[in-house]
């Protein structure tokens, strides 16, 4: 049906305005700047309100566990006096099995308050199950749109498991083959049903994650006498980093370092039908982590509430094999069998803890559930069936999409620093490009870009000057 996509995209503004439950235009300041804090506060819920909504929804207050065996494992090979204490916030204990329950809870609450009959979310991840679970509790209808299959109708077992869980919670699951047109189909569904768009990137979603950072800062203070020195966050679209960091700040944990971590999937194209099943991680990877950090407003909302570069102090990448190895280690050493994607930060934390003094404290701020399909064995079996070479060896030889190399010893788990300076420059270049040629940033724009990149207006000006000279 030629023209249908164009027709629906032409009405995108109207459809989204009705579906988002808030008017984003009120926060625009210039072709570059917008009132981020104003947008975040527009829903009118205080942190206490959000905690109360989540409590009623069965969300949050997950256990914070000290991982003494993992800590001693790291100390067994760290330099003397090194090897930070490692903790984990067991977010898999949420009803739908991940921190995404926090992200879904406020959107669902808003949908019910405003009289929407249902909610729609586009996600192949744990977020779908969270939306479906919260919608069930709120007696709302729910549609989850998933990019699920390649053109052969072969699906990642991890995604198929998430289809199952969404359907278990009563959602209608619309499964698509690979392609960004998923967004125009979601618009059609929003238009047809009049449901709320429960976007991952709305202020509702990201505000819901603030309770995670807030809780863990308070729990660490109760347990160790101080907030953690480091929090490691699995990073994809940026909501996890943003919400957690904002929650830490609300708890007064201003000196805690926020370390984001992603699985390195460099070289794989996220919109490629053939690459789709050559990766074992469907989220928490650089294929989302880098583009979303360097241009957050590519999301399905006019302005993305998830702006990771505002909050990131460091960005680490790990290989798929390292995460599978650490997933196995966590189960065997700590009795915590959890999903691999959520253990991305755990792998990075193992490497980070080794560099830090033994008095430092590192919190891995989430886990996710595991099970058939999501389990790391299922993932490795699937990778082999797709022709990926799986072998034991040095993970430094990892090539995403070609091989998965499982370390033979924990010393080989070495996260790599992804240069933040490069990401900041790339973000500023994107902001200038979107403002249009010939637009000169104002002082307000420089302030905005500085806040959005965790730098200063002087640094932004320097970067702009260098970009112009190129």
């Amino acid at each position, binding site marked *: *049906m*030629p023209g*249908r*996509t164009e027709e629906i995209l032409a009405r995108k503004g109207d459809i989204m305005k009705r579906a988002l439950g808030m008017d984003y235009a009120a926060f625009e300041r210039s072709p570059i700047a917008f009132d981020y804090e104003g947008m975040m506060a527009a829903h009118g819920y205080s942190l206490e309100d959000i905690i109360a909504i989540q409590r009623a929804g069965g969300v949050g207050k997950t256990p914070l566990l000290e991982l003494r*065996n993992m800590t*001693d*494992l790291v100390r*067994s090979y760290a330099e003397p006096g090194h090897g930070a204490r490692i903790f984990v916030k067991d977010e898999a204990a949420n009803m739908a099995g991940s921190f995404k329950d926090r992200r879904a809870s406020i959107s669902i609450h808003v949908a019910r308050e405003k009289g929407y009959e*249902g909610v729609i979310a586009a996600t192949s991840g744990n977020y779908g199950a969270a939306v479906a679970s919260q919608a069930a509790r709120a007696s709302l*209808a*729910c*549609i989850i749109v998933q990019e699920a*299959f390649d*053109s052969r*109708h072969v699906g990642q*077992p991890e995604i*198929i*498991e998430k289809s*199952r869980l969404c*359907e278990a919670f*009563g959602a*209608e*699951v*619309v*499964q*698509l*083959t*690979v*392609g*960004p*047109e998923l967004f125009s*189909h979601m618009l059609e569904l929003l238009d*047809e*049903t009049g449901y709320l768009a429960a976007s991952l990137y709305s202020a509702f979603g990201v505000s819901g994650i603030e309770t995670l950072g807030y809780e863990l800062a308070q729990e660490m203070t109760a347990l160790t006498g101080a907030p953690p020195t480091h929090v490691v966050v699995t990073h994809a679209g940026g909501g996890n980093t943003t919400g957690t960091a904002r929650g830490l700040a609300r708890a007064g944990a201003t000196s805690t370092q926020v370390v984001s971590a992603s699985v390195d999937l460099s070289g794989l*194209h996220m*919109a*490629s*039908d*053939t690459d789709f099943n050559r990766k074992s991680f469907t989220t928490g990877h650089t294929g989302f982590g880098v583009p979303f950090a360097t241009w957050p407003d590519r999301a399905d909302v006019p302005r993305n509430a998830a702006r990771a570069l505002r909050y990131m102090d460091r960005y680490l990448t790990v290989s798929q094999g390292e995460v*599978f*190895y650490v997933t*196995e*280690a966590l*189960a*065997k*050493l700590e009795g915590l069998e959890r999903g691999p994607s959520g253990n991305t930060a755990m792998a990075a934390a193992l490497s980070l803890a080794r560099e830090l003094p033994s008095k430092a404290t590192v919190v891995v701020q989430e886990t996710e559930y595991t099970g*058939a*399909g999501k*389990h*790391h*064995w*299922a993932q*490795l*079996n*699937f990778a082999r069936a797709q022709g990926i070479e*799986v*072998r*034991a060896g040095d993970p430094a030889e990892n090539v995403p999409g070609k091989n998965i190399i*499982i370390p033979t*010893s924990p010393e080989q788990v070495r996260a790599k620093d992804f240069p933040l300076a490069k990401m900041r420059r790339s973000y500023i270049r994107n902001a200038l490009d979107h403002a249009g040629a010939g637009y000169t940033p104002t002082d307000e724009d420089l302030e905005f870009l500085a806040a959005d990149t965790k730098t200063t207006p002087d640094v932004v000006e320097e970067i702009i000057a260098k970009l112009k000279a190129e």
Partner: protein
Amino acid sequence: MTGRCTPGQWVEVERVLLEPADRSENLPEDTAAQPLRMWVKGFARSEAALGDEVEVETMTGRVVLGTLTEVEPGYTHTFGKPAPELTRVGRDLRERVAAYRAREAVHKAGE
């Protein structure tokens, strides 16, 4: 799985949303060459055989027309076989932690 559904039975249908010619610009070549396909489950509104066009009523009450692909679709994903690269990890790491603790105990006793 039978080859036919009766009205009211839980089934899966498939539809082509976009033919290759109608797809977005700037797609990688491999994706651009394929149609965008969609699968959804629901209650069949009439009798049909696999491959027939049939309307379904989905969980949210939408009516979707598509080709019948499966009757009473289930889930077959598993944990799979153990990965040989991982089977020794638990035992090895527990030994390492125990050895480290034994060394530390000796060290502390000597202080």
